[in-house]
Structures are given as structure tokens and as C-alpha cells.
């Protein structure tokens, strides 16, 4: 297959995907690090490379409201944010998915205030995880481009019609260059048909989107959205297969496994830090340790079945949370909670240990991953898992 490889950051890769997806309306408001996507898109529109309405929001709540209306009028819409910008728009997320508008929001993670720390941390995006949106993390600029295209395709599928958060770690992915194979317009057009919704705003055939309704209609409305989310598993798998056919890059929709053959203990995590974990696993393999890495690619919908089946192969799983969830069970993070829930009532007992790491944009260093693997090895050997979670670097 012909390739067109260029070196670029996660932000520029996402902008290229948005251009190839031929979006109609973009709404921006600056906050780093995601703003690198918008500056590149603004340049594309100014240079005539992309024919789209580029609207400046008066804030993130305004941004999401603009793309909400745009998507309701039948436009393919794109927006994005980071950190407190993501949480400022919180009100608008549920209406967008409830009204089944498949617009896309890129999130390049940033720590929530205080303090005014602009480092990467998954907390911002994870705050919005249960709003009926698709959500997953890219671990490289190439995957950032691919996620954007795949998510539009999945979200706009008539069986789905749901919005998408295409997430990438701030800086670690958004601002570090990687080789990106940019597909041709013909490939993208073959993969991503024009956006058509169930209903559009049209003065000739007026509809009320999001009307007031009586409380007895509430349960059914929520159940419809639940069914749409639950129905996505099949669509994810179909679209990933089709993506491989068109673009030649094959991803498992749910989990990426690295050196997991006959592994006893694995690190389970999502996002760019997986690359560091893989380096460490590779080195430990050379030393004869039975270790590996499992990277979660899709957080919502959560692949309960696949996580259970895959993690059942191992003795111990170390779950790395790059977010704060103060007061959560076991004192760790939401990823550990989800993994434990997926493994509950499983025939085979799998020990899980939580690690909260890389907060505030700190690197999760090689050294820290060595220490985590050490803990896992010890749990595997002794069968004792007394301290269920560790905050790095203070507790390990």
C-alpha cells in the first residue's frame, strides 16, 4: 500500500484528520495543549485548504453549544478542549448525546486546577466519561489521526448516532512528533460517507429537538440512549475491520497486547504512557521476566467481556491510573475500579494492584514502571496483595 509519511505532533495529526473528514463547522476557544489542533485548522481554513466555518466560541460552554446546533442542522462538526475547559462545558455533553448528535470533540489532556498546572492528566476527560459519548485514548500521533476518522465513522453510523471524545495525552502525544502516514482523500471518502442524521433542523419540516417532556417519558428516553451505547460493540468491530481494509492499519478495537504470551504479570493502562511501559517490559523480557503490557484503546463503551477474557490469562494485573478520583474505592483510580468490576465473579482469580502515577503532567518514568513490575512480581510469587494501591512516587 502506498504511504505518505510525515513527521508531526498529535495536534497536527488530528487537524489533518479533521481536514480529511471534510468537516463543515469548527468551533474553537484557546487553552493549551489542545489549542495546537485549532491553530493548525485555522491555518488550513485561512490558506483555503479546508472549506469550513471556523467559529470562535466565547468559552467552552459556547463552543459545545455551537457545534451542538451545527450538528443538529446536518453539519459535520468538530471542537475540542483541555483541562478546565473540558469541565466548563459539562452541561452541554448530555444534551448532545441525548439528542443523538454525532459531533466530535478532541481532548488533549490537562490537569484540572488548582494549581494552574498545564501538565497532562486524564482527569479532565474522565470527568465526562458517563455522558453517553464514545471515549478512548490515542497513544501516538498516528493513532490520534486514526481515532478521529474511526470515531466519526462509528459515531455517525445510523445504528449509533452518538458524539465522540477522541482523547490524547497532553504534550506526551499532542506535542511530541511521530511518523504519521497521512491517507489520501480518496481513501477517507471511501471509508467515511457523508453525515446524515435521523432528523435535521429545517424550516420546511420543523421539529423540536430536546423538547420539554413529562417525567413518565424519562425512563424510556434514557433506555433508548442506553441501548444505543450497548449496541456500539458490534459497530466498533465492523468499523475497525473496514479501517484495516482501507488504510492497512489493523487495530484491535478494545485492547492492544504487548509481549503478553505466557506473561504472568502485566501493566494495564491507556494513553501515551503505554509506550514507556512497553520499553520497560521489553527490557524485563530480555532479563527473562514473564511480563507484558495491555493497553486499553476504548474506555467508553467499556469492553467488559474483552477485558475479562484477556486479563484472565495472567496472575497479576497492575492498573495504572493517570487521574485523580479522590475517595474512590481502594484509594486508586477509576480504571482500577472498572477492571475489578469486569473481573468480578470471574472463574479465575486475578489479583489487581492499583498505581496512581504521572499526576500533574509528571512523566511516569522507566524507573517507576520497574518498581511497579517488581510489586506485581512479588504479588505473583507470594499470592499476597495487602496494599491494594500505590500513589507514585510517594508510596513506592
Amino acid at each position: 500500500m502506498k504511504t505518505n509519511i510525515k513527521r508531526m505532533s498529535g495536534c497536527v495529526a488530528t487537524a489533518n484528520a479533521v481536514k480529511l473528514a471534510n468537516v463543515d463547522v469548527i468551533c474553537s476557544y484557546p487553552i493549551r495543549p489542545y489549542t495546537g489542533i485549532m491553530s493548525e485548522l485555522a491555518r488550513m481554513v485561512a490558506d483555503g485548504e479546508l472549506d469550513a466555518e471556523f467559529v470562535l466560541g466565547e468559552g467552552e460552554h459556547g463552543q459545545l453549544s455551537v457545534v451542538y446546533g451545527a450538528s443538529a442542522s446536518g453539519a459535520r462538526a468538530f471542537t475540542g478542549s483541555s483541562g478546565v475547559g473540558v469541565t466548563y462545558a459539562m452541561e452541554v455533553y448530555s444534551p448532545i448525546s441525548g439528542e443523538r448528535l454525532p459531533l466530535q470533540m478532541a481532548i488533549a489532556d490537562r490537569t484540572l486546577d488548582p494549581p494552574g498546572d498545564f501538565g497532562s492528566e486524564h482527569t479532565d476527560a474522565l470527568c465526562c466519561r458517563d455522558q453517553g459519548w464514545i471515549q478512548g485514548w490515542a497513544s501516538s500521533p498516528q493513532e490520534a489521526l486514526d481515532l478521529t476518522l474511526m470515531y466519526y465513522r462509528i459515531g455517525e453510523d445510523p445504528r449509533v448516532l452518538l458524539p465522540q471524545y477522541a482523547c490524547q495525552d497532553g504534550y506526551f502525544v499532542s506535542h511530541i512528533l511521530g511518523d504519521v502516514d497521512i491517507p489520501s482523500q480518496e481513501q477517507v471518502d471511501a471509508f467515511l460517507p457523508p453525515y446524515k442524521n435521523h432528523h435535521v433542523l429545517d424550516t420546511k419540516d420543523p421539529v423540536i429537538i430536546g423538547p420539554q417532556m413529562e417525567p413518565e417519558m424519562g425512563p424510556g428516553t434514557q433506555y433508548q440512549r442506553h441501548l444505543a451505547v450497548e449496541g456500539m460493540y458490534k459497530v466498533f468491530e465492523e468499523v475497525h475491520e473496514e479501517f484495516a481494509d482501507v488504510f492497512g492499519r489493523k487495530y484491535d478495537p478494545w485492547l492492544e497486547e504487548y509481549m503478553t504470551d505466557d506473561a504472568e504479570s502485566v501493566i494495564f493502562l491507556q494513553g501515551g504512557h503505554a509506550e514507556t511501559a512497553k520499553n520497560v517490559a521489553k527490557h524485563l523480557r530480555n532479563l527473562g521476566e514473564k511480563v507484558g503490557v495491555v493497553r486499553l484503546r476504548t474506555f467508553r463503551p467499556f469492553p467488559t467481556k474483552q477485558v475479562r477474557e484477556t486479563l484472565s490469562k495472567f496472575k497479576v494485573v497492575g492498573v495504572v491510573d493517570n487521574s485523580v478520583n479522590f475517595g474512590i474505592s481502594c484509594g486508586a483510580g477509576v480504571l482500577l475500579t472498572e477492571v475489578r468490576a469486569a473481573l468480578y465473579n470471574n472463574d479465575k482469580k486475578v489479583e489487581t494492584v492499583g498505581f496512581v502515577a504521572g499526576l500533574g503532567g509528571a512523566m511516569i518514568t522507566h524507573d517507576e514502571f520497574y518498581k511497579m513490575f517488581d510489586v506485581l512480581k512479588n504479588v505473583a510469587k507470594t499470592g499476597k496483595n495487602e496494599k491494594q494501591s500505590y500513589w507514585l512516587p510517594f508510596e513506592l
Partner: protein
Amino acid sequence: MAVVPYERIPFAGTVPSPQKENEGMITGNWRTRRPIVDSEKCVKCQTCWINCPDACVNLNDDKPINFNLKYCKGCGICAEVCPAGAITLVPELDFEE
């Protein structure tokens, strides 16, 4: 009130727009104060008609303006924006019906 089966809920709750009035959501009984027009003062500038968030102001060529009390929630925006001071809000309890 019986819960409506989910199959009977329109997709995403979206419904055809009523051209005039939505019988499924009558809001006039939320009102605690009723707008009353002093037709001597009213200059028919239509400012209230422009500003009413619920399209409850009826314009008539030969009669004074009046309000659709089936939907008027009594928010008072009309009285606030009226340049002639022709609209006052009167407590609902002052009315017989």
C-alpha cells in the same frame, strides 16, 4: 402516571414542531403574575412581541395587544422592555379565575 414504553418514545425525543401550540406542555399554570396592558398607553411598537420568549403576545390590527395566557408563565420580560410603561404585572390571586 404510567411510564411510557421506550418503543413509543420518538427517536431522541425529537418531535414534529407544533405550528402554533403544544398541547403536551401547557405552562400557563406556572404563572404567579399576569401581564395587563393599558391600551391608552400602548403605542403598538411590538417590542413585547419581539422579546417574549414563549411567543405569547398576540398582535391585532384593530384591537389592543393581548397575551396567550395558556402558555404565558408571567416572566415579566414584556413589562420590563415596554418603552411606554403600558404593561404591569398583577398577582394572579387578584383575579377571580
